[in-house]
């Protein structure tokens, strides 16, 4: 669809409406201030132009109560706006625990996505309508940024780490995906299509396509291929941490810190095993940096996640 222009992009997520309200509120407030300043300037410029005979007695050169008032009032208004922005921002990063994770790997100049059942896509992303989604993003080369104006969300995909953001698509349809962080020659071509489908259709879409094992199953194969199971399996003679139910669990570290194990923690433990050593264990694990690619790593993490939830998953 081609329209000459629009100011409000289509809203395709629950958070978009709320965000537009914040923008509208800011627009009214700042518009009132800008208009107030403009009107006062014009009134003064006309009334006190050099040739006018307006009364100019009792010229104030300072007025402490006025100064304090126009310092304090904006400050209080700003604090209110700040809080609104901060609360909605925090919500993007504290997604629903039941949110469906979708894994996005960016590279110059394309978006690759993988769903948990192993369905992969490039340059487009299918999402279920009305279900909370949590994107887990990373990049294979430089920094990119996943930007869907219709959802009012944007999250940088940073090489060397996982970032994530949560939202709930609220309207079926197709939306534009842009790369918002300058990433080289074809930055402007690094676009894609977000397709939001009703849940039943989404389920059908997930099931079709080339058959391949789900991410966790592929992860399990990789888990064995890279020898992880040699130490981390229950029956292993090597003293290595148990990975069952690891994601979301509180982990005590050797240096006294306590952290919640998330994807980034598992990733660091595989690539930089000496960074966060679990209390009570020797730092004997070798690094797999440069050996396991980003997409395989995500599959291994999915396997570790699944291995806690589903007893039927084949365990070493």
């Amino acid at each position, binding site marked *: 669809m*081609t329209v*000459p222009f*629009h100011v409000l*992009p289509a809203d395709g997520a629950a958070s978009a409406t709320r*965000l537009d309200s*914040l923008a509208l509120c*800011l627009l009214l407030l*700042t518009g009132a*201030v*800008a208009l107030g*300043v403009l009107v*006062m*300037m014009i009134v*003064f410029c006309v009334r*006190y132009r050099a040739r006018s005979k307006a009364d*100019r007695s*009792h*010229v*104030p*050169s*300072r*007025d402490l109560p*006025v*100064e304090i008032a*126009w*310092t304090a009032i*904006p*400050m209080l208004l*700003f604090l209110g*706006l*700040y809080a*609104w*922005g*901060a609360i909605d*921002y925090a919500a993007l990063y504290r997604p629903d625990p039941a949110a469906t994770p979708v894994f996005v790997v960016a590279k*110059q100049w394309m978006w690759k996505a993988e769903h948990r059942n192993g369905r992969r896509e490039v340059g487009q992303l299918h999402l279920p309508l009305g279900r909370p989604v949590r994107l887990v993003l990373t990049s294979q*080369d*430089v*920094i990119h*940024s996943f*930007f869907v*104006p219709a959802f009012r*969300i*944007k*999250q*940088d995909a*940073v*090489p*060397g*780490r996982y*970032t994530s*953001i949560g939202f709930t698509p609220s309207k079926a349809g197709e939306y*534009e995906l842009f790369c*918002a*962080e*300058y*990433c*080289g*020659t074809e930055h402007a*071509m690094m676009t894609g299509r977000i397709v939001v489908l009703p849940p039943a259709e989404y389920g059908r879409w997930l099931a079709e396509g080339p058959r391949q094992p789900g991410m966790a199953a592929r992860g399990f194969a990789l888990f064995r291929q890279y020898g992880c199971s040699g130490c981390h399996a229950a029956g292993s003679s090597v003293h290595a941490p148990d990975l069952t139910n690891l994601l979301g669990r509180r982990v005590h570290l050797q240096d006294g810190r306590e952290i919640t194990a998330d994807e980034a923690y598992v990733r660091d433990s595989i690539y930089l095993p000496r960074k966060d050593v679990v209390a009570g264990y020797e730092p004997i694990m070798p690094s797999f940096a440069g050996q396991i690619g980003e997409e395989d790593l995500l599959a291994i993490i999915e396997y570790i996640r699944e291995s806690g939830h589903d007893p039927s998953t084949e365990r070493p």
Partner: protein
Amino acid sequence: MTRPQSDLSLIEEGDTRPGRSYLSEGWTLGSWLGTRDHKRIALLYAASITLFFFLGGIAAALIRIELATPQGDLVSADTYNKLFTAHGVIMVWLFLIPSIPSVLGNFLMPMMIGARDLAFPRLNLASWYLYMLGGAIVLWALLAGGVDTGWTFYTPFSTMFSNSHVVLALVGVLVVGFSSILTGLNFIVTVHTMRAPGMGWFRLPLFVWANYATSLILVLATPVLAMTLVLVAVERLFQVGIFDPALGGDPLLFQHLFWFYSHPAVYIMVLPAMGVASEIIPCFARRPVFGYRFMAYAILAIGVIGFLVWGHHMFVSGQSVYAGMVFSLLSFMVAVPSAIKVFNWTATLYKGRISFSAPMLYALGFVGLFTIGGLTGLFLAALALDVHLSDTYFVVAHFHYIMVGGSVMAYLGGIHFWWPKITGRMYSEAWGRLAAVVIFAGFNLTFFPQYLLGYAGMPRRYHSYPEEFQLLHVLSSAGAVTLAIGYLMPLGYLAWSLRYGRPAPPNPWQATGLEWQAASPPPVHNFAQLPVVARGPYAYHTD
């Protein structure tokens, strides 16, 4: 206009006799390239930054022509990327940062505090040579094939992926940075040690306060930029892992270091502009500036808080949510002193006797555009909203309102205001006013549509774009043509005035600053006998 305030003449009888003007000291190349006179060095800067302004402007013009159509049809994607990089690097480091401090500040600071020169005249000249050297290296990098990283040099793109002349450009910016540091140092020492008798801190014109605060930022922040650029070069040349995760580095570390300099750099650009407006508005309103002390404290507050908001460039970068919250709060707080300044400028007009000469039109334009730029900054400071607006044209519009609508408008206002003092000639008032109006209109037509583009979701640094954005882009490009005409006008009529302009009296605007006590153009050593200051600045009376 009121009659000249003879009681304000702070210089003893006989000392206002025009001595030999600094311009009549000779027109040989050596008399300019070897000068230690702050006024001549200011003119050296003026000529060089004007050159760079038009070079950066040519890049901007090509960008706007390319964006008139959705397809990338005028230049290739690589060329486009090099154009916006050249535009940013030139405009930020070779024009905006030196603009008001190095031209107007250099010329006026010693005169405003009643001194004969800056504290270190040779260092001042050395700063200009460093600036020219850095500028030449940047130009070399651009002519050798250009740089495609954007002026922000984000890693790991700039260190490991870009195939352009990154290191050469970094070296150029690094050298220009040292020029900034030395100028800042010179200004700080000058304000501390060379104020005329009776010139207490709260008798300083706000222009001096603004340049003093700017100098503190230059001295404290620029070294961080220098270190960061060196680290980028080291990683790029020797594959030492600093910012690239493939080598064990952290790309966000670069952003923290870069914005630790580059956010305060925004205040380097806009504080001196505020100083210019604070001189022009009281003069043409014939009123003391309203709330002088609040204005001075606001300048310092902006300088200090400005150091603590850099993380608002990184709300979607993956930095911690809590860091985002702290940076957002501080960003709202830095808007408070800016708001105070806008309110005080407006209040200065109250019960004034206002005349609308060209400098005043620029200054009023500055206040209006800075207000819009500042208020739209609140949209970007609001965390959830920045998630949508970050890296879109909304950001482009916002910072152009501050840097072009704000700083360039004020720079031009200052050039017009002090032109009679600097050159000893009056320019054509009608042309001056016309150019101010054309620039104001062209600016708004160029950049206001970009706010709408940004909210609609148009990402920045795009060589081609979806068709639905075309109408707004065409408006913006049409505005750019108007703006270009507006910027060429002063070049014409100001140059004309150099030869044909009416000779300027010492104080054509009946302004109160000490610089107006000297002849136009000022004698070599500004004051035959140093003035003794007995009152604060802005002793204007409406009656």
